[in-house]
């Protein structure tokens, strides 16, 4: 995309292009891509080690997170750092509900009765986590979204601290600072990849819908957006709650993937890394977020042996921070700006061909 061209996402209104959308073709291409991905995954899972599979699952979850952050922060321009807080809530809800019954009765003495003698199935506990996180995000969003810019950032940072405080102190439900361990490992690469694809699809569809355009209009100029009839307060709330729900679901998956949740699992460092993913990829670019999340995850993992053997803890985090500073300094729009790489949009948005 040339620099001066208007953002296709904003410029292209439905049914306005010379050729109307051909949904069937786009759907076919999408199905082909999904199949291709699944096949690649199947080939990969056949020979990867257990570590490799877990790493791939983590990468999928990180991509999901980055994309959901892109929805809230990138598309809508809400500078929220609250994702780790919502992940933590989701992780704890799913972990507590899905905890083995034998341990529940001795460890989680504050849990109400029907849940103590019932180990909720995985899917149900994930849905419960999503619902609870969604409700909390809705209530908090109504209050907090009145703040702007970095004030919203610090207030949502506060959310992380508040949730951490709750997790540490609500002993009867969270086992305090030592956290919950021995959560059954019910997810794997397939679940995580599935979640990633689902979220990618949802966010992609939102971005190129009227809701997405309302979000971007809100980001660019709230006053102007209101003047043309966008209900910015509602749009912001939708973006915030949706992002939070995705974060909560990822948290629930994480809990069931790495089998441990502690109050320190999801903190400010994670919030920073998510911001880095959004900014490096380009504020509002879904593919950019995917690539940045992949790079940052792989970078962290590949430097781990070096960090551990030479005692260089913090090296990978420094590199991420340095990359972020350099990008902000020399290419503040990030990798792709707010758009998507052309070949992707071509693949799925036939009407965008010029």
């Amino acid at each position, binding site marked *: 995309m040339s620099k001066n061209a208007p953002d296709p996402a904003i410029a292209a209104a439905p049914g306005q292009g010379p050729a109307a959308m051909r949904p069937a073709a786009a759907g076919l291409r999408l199905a082909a891509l999904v199949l291709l991905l699944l096949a690649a995954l199947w080939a990969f899972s056949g020979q990867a080690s257990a570590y490799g599979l877990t790493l791939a699952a983590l990468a999928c979850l990180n991509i999901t997170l980055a994309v959901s952050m892109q929805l809230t922060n990138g598309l809508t321009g809400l500078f929220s750092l609250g994702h780790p807080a919502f992940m933590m809530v989701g992780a704890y809800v799913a972990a507590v509900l899905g905890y083995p019954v034998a341990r529940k009765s001795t460890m989680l003495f504050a849990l109400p009765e029907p849940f103590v003698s019932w180990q909720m199935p995985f899917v149900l506990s994930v849905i419960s986590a999503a619902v609870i996180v969604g409700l909390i995000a809705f209530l908090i969003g109504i209050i907090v979204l009145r703040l*702007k810019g*970095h004030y919203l950032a610090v207030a949502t940072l*506060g959310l992380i601290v508040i949730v951490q405080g709750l997790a*540490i102190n609500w002993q009867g439900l969270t086992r305090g600072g030592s956290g919950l361990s021995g959560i059954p490992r019910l997810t794997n690469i397939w679940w995580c990849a599935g979640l990633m694809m689902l979220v990618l699809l949802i966010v992609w569809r939102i971005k190129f819908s009227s809701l997405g355009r309302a979000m971007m209009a809100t980001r660019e100029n709230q006053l102007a957006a209101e003047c043309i009839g966008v209900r910015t307060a509602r749009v912001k709330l939708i973006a915030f709650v949706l992002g939070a729900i995705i974060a909560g679901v990822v948290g629930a998956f994480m809990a069931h993937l790495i089998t441990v949740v502690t109050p320190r699992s999801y903190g400010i460092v994670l919030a920073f890394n998510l911001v880095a993913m959004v900014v490096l990829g380009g504020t509002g670019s879904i593919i950019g977020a995917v690539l940045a999340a992949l790079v940052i995850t792989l970078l962290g993992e590949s430097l781990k042996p070096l960090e551990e053997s030479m005692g260089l803890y913090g090296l990978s985090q420094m590199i991420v921070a340095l990359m972020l500073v350099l990008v902000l300094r020399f290419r503040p729009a990030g990798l792709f700006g707010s758009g998507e790489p052309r070949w992707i949009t071509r693949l799925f948005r036939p009407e965008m061909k010029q």
Partner: protein
Amino acid sequence: MSQYLFQQIVNGLSLGSLYALIAIGFSMIYGIVRLINFAHGDLVMIGAFASLAMVQMGMPWPLVALLVLVVGACAGMTIETVIFRPMRSATQVTGFIATLAVSVLIQNGALLLLSGQQRSFQFPAVMRQRVEIGGVSASLTDLTIIVMAVVLIAALLFVVYRTRLGTAMRATSENLLAAQLMGVPVNRTILAAFAIGSGLAAIAGLMWGGKFGQIHPLMGLAPGLKAFIACVIGGVGSIGGALLGGYLLGMAEVLFVGLLPPEYASYRDSFVFLLLIVILLVKPSGLFMRHVEERA
């Protein structure tokens, strides 16, 4: 007055002194370049470790206290020249993300160089004595912190309100462009604000280490966030607001822990952030500011 209550008040004053010292620098920087400097807290950490290094080299404490001001000032000026100055025209949020990145850079650099271990940081044994004042006693450490903070704050107020540099700073914070057109050397003034603010944060780091006895590469996070909250309480960008906000926050925090039943004590940080969110929503301009740009 009971010993317990007196102890709480002294404790609150000394904690508030630290918050106020850190918040002042934070507020000066915000006032002049409208930048929420998330890395400000890490200068507290730099100050603490620099003090520890100097003490271990055998320097006397008064010299350490002077030098740590210089170390902090140099660190602040370096950050400003290398990272923030080239980005001055960027949006507020971009600037904030950059300060976040700088903070992560400093923290992890410190982890890399110093390892993640807690280190013990002890004032000389004399400081652990308790002083009797009219039947109640307070620790010498707390009293020293309170007195030193008052001296530093007085010096700062003198600089800001009675010198040319201070006039330039106030003019720049009032309107950067107008100040520039009136011949104020804006870049140098901003650099000075970073130097003074960071120096104060660094010496606060020395006192922080002495008060809590332990220092750590990630210790800057809490003071940085608390300083921000103190600024919000008082009104971001005003020095007086930062001062009052700092003392108020210190007092509130200590009284929260001291007067409520002990099982609530560990909710301290959650309480402080709840306070922040409430103030941002109810009185976003801060308790002591009359008018201020829009932030909510």
